């Protein structure tokens, strides 16, 4: 009997038996079978033409996707690789009294357990380092990780985290950003204030301009929390070599900064950390910072084996960043011919449990909140507030879709009240080449009016309506 046939027999007998000990599962072939695909490729003409810029060139990765040859993190396997799972708190605000991992550690197939106290520097974040890799003393939102397990299979790891017993002392929590603003509200990161970032833009004389305005419009607009929902969840594999270097294959979209965060949390020099990204299966801002990478690295260090972690869809929702809910108050002064003469904006951003990219979101939202319009008198103030909810962070648009919903809703309200066409009132107020932005910047290559006219023409805005 050939060696190959023996392996096949083993596989068969293992699948026929009820899932037995972890040892049998380990002997399952971990490497996917090679897939036949044509290596002789026909390069589309458009990729061969010069000049290159302006060509509708096809993507080389498109061919890999089409042939099912793209290797995402979960398609990678290394000999002896373990699987990690993270235990989530499930409670929004609490002090951790104790974590008992003994039962999990004693399970066959469990090779290592990790808690927050074992992480060399247990904090990270792009502007404020307020997020623990694994919660150690306190839980700030229900999706926080409190312990992690590396086991021979994903199933064993999932069972093992159920065996970890965490004793919590519940703390008062706050979920509404307006409540969180109040002095007597529970402080999410006590003793620090719940307002962790604020920004102001002032231009001209708003009060005087409102006094002169023919009409004043006021409104409040709100947006919800949403997820990026990438097809591929957060995934990573960590492994060490004999020189004490750690290599992490990860779904991050920003490996330079990811490496810095990993090195910081593990207390390693940067040149001992290597991050390798594959083609990421969707980012949209959600894969801009580390999540489980240091956990996997430490589990790998403990076991001496590669360790893979793949978020479940539930973790993707509850334990990675989301889009900031906004509460937006707009007051706008308008002349009778439809020119915006003054605008006052107040933004409250529900920042969730950690700062993450809130400062950036706050800044962009503030600057963009007046809309792409020439407004000489402007006052914007914005606050990012902690709540004991899923952290909000970078997401396609950094606050712009939220404020656009507000300023464009109000623009239509103004147009309707003045009996103006929504297109015309926008053209009347729109930025032009050289217009001053809310921050006083002289804008260049401004083609806003061209986009308004082009979209209107394509849509048939001026054609009679049926």
């Amino acid at each position, binding site marked *: 009997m050939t060696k190959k046939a023996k392996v096949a027999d083993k596989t068969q007998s293992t699948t026929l038996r009820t899932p037995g000990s972890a040892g049998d599962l380990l002997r399952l072939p971990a490497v996917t079978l090679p897939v036949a695909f044509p290596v002789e490729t026909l390069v589309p003409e458009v990729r061969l033409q010069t000049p290159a810029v302006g060509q509708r060139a096809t993507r080389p990765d498109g061919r890999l996707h089409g042939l099912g040859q793209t290797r995402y993190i979960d398609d990678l396997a290394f000999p002896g690789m373990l699987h990690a799972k993270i235990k989530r708190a499930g409670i929004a605000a609490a002090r951790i009294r104790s974590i008992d991992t003994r039962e999990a550690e004693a399970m066959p197939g469990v090779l290592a357990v990790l808690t927050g106290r074992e992480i060399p520097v247990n904090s990270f974040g792009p502007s404020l380092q307020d997020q623990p890799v694994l919660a150690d003393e306190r839980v700030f939102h229900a999706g926080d990780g409190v312990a992690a397990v590396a086991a021979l299979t994903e199933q064993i790891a999932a069972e093992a985290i159920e065996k970890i017993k965490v004793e919590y002392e519940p703390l008062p929590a706050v979920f509404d950003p307006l409540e969180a603003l109040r002095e007597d509200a529970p402080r999410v990161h006590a003793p620090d204030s719940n307002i962790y970032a604020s920004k102001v833009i002032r231009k001209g004389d708003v009060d005087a301009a409102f006094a002169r305005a023919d009409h004043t419009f006021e409104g409040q607009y709100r947006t919800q929390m949403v997820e990026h929902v990438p097809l591929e969840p957060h995934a990573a594999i960590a492994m060490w070599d004999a020189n004490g270097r750690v290599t992490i294959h990860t779904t991050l979209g920003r490996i330079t900064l990811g490496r810095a965060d990993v090195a910081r949390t593990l207390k390693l020099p940067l040149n001992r950390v290597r991050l390798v*990204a594959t083609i990421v299966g969707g980012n949209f801002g959600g894969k801009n910072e580390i999540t489980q990478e240091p956990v996997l690295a430490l589990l790998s260090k403990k076991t001496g084996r590669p360790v893979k972690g793949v978020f479940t869809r*539930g973790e993707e929702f509850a334990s990675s960043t989301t889009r900031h809910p906004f509460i937006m108050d707009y007051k706008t002064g308008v002349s009778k011919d439809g020119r915006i003469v003054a605008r006052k904006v107040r933004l409250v951003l529900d920042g969730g449990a950690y700062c993450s990219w809130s400062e950036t979101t706050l800044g962009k939202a503030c600057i963009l909140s007046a809309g792409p319009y020439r407004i000489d008198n402007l006052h914007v103030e914005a606050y990012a507030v902690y709540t004991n909810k899923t952290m909000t962070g970078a997401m396609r648009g950094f606050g712009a879709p939220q404020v656009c919903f507000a300023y464009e809703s109000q623009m239509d309200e103004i147009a309707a009240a003045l009996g103006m066409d929504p297109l015309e009132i926008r053209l009347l107020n729109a930025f032009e080449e050289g217009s001053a932005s*809310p921050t006083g910047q002289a804008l260049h290559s401004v083609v806003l009016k061209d986009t308004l006219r082009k979209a209107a023409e394509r849509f048939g805005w001026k054609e009679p309506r049926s």
Partner: protein
Amino acid sequence: MKRRGRGIACMWYPIGFTVSANPSAATVKVNEDGTATLLTGTVETGQGSLTVLGQIAAEELGIATDDVHVVSADTDAMPMDTGAIASRTTYVTGNAVRLAAEKAKWILFEAAATLLGVKPEQLEARDRKIQVKGYPQRSIAISEAAHRAQVVLGQPPIGSASWNPPTVAMDPETGQGKPFSTYVYATQIAEVDVDDETGEVEVLRIAAAHDCGTPINPMLVEGQVEGGISMGIGFALQEQILFDGAGRQINPNLTNYIMPTSLDMPEIEVDIVDSYDPTGPFGAKGVGEPTSVPTAAAILNAIHDAVGVRITSLPATAEKVLAAIKAKQAQGTKGLLRNR
């Protein structure tokens, strides 16, 4: 009964980080046969950025897209990059790539100049050739220049460069400053049907006119617009993470967190308006995030146009729209009663 409405929304959006440095670096290596390899520290996250960066390197070297192989995403081997964020890759990394390719090209020019009997300044790279500006009949193949540079002169044509968008810090009291180097603009117009008996909104058509500077790859720009609109529709009508009273998510799954599928997608008509930004690589700016910025606003304005109710909190679910229609009808009836 289904009522039709239309809504318009425009927007502006910056490229790159707010004030803070967000540099990119790149290395371009021209091989002995005139093909090239581009090393970048950014990551392909599905948007086609590596294809665009390859096209930028190719354009500077006067070769075709397929002549450039792009290698990315390994911190051991690639130059630093601030990464796939803030719609910055085409603009910031693109500028670094162009500068790196320019440096490699200069080595090719030096190798070609003596053969062509002119100064390097008099040369240009076009159609896989190094040729004399204004006298293209005098040229050599880029492969010949590359081979000569590396194998004869011992000067491999490799260039590395970095770029960071110039900004001016914002005044903490007034916010005045130049937080971004450049901005893009866009308008989207949505046509919807609103069922006034169920509150259900169907987006029929979106005309999207976007500015991205000069598009490096118009097909990939269109792809971004279509993808951005799908996210915008979810934000406008369906998606919402819900919490119970104890701060735990109650719909963290794709069964109860409703997002648009291909069946919800409207007809999308994309226009890329003529634009050239002198600060971007070959006039390009960016397009990733802005595509999903005006969609929800346009749809909500269309809902108002259709049934006369203004939904001021997203998402405009069927329940919410129906409740607003009913409230409006009740008010209308009251008004009628009063008038009588």
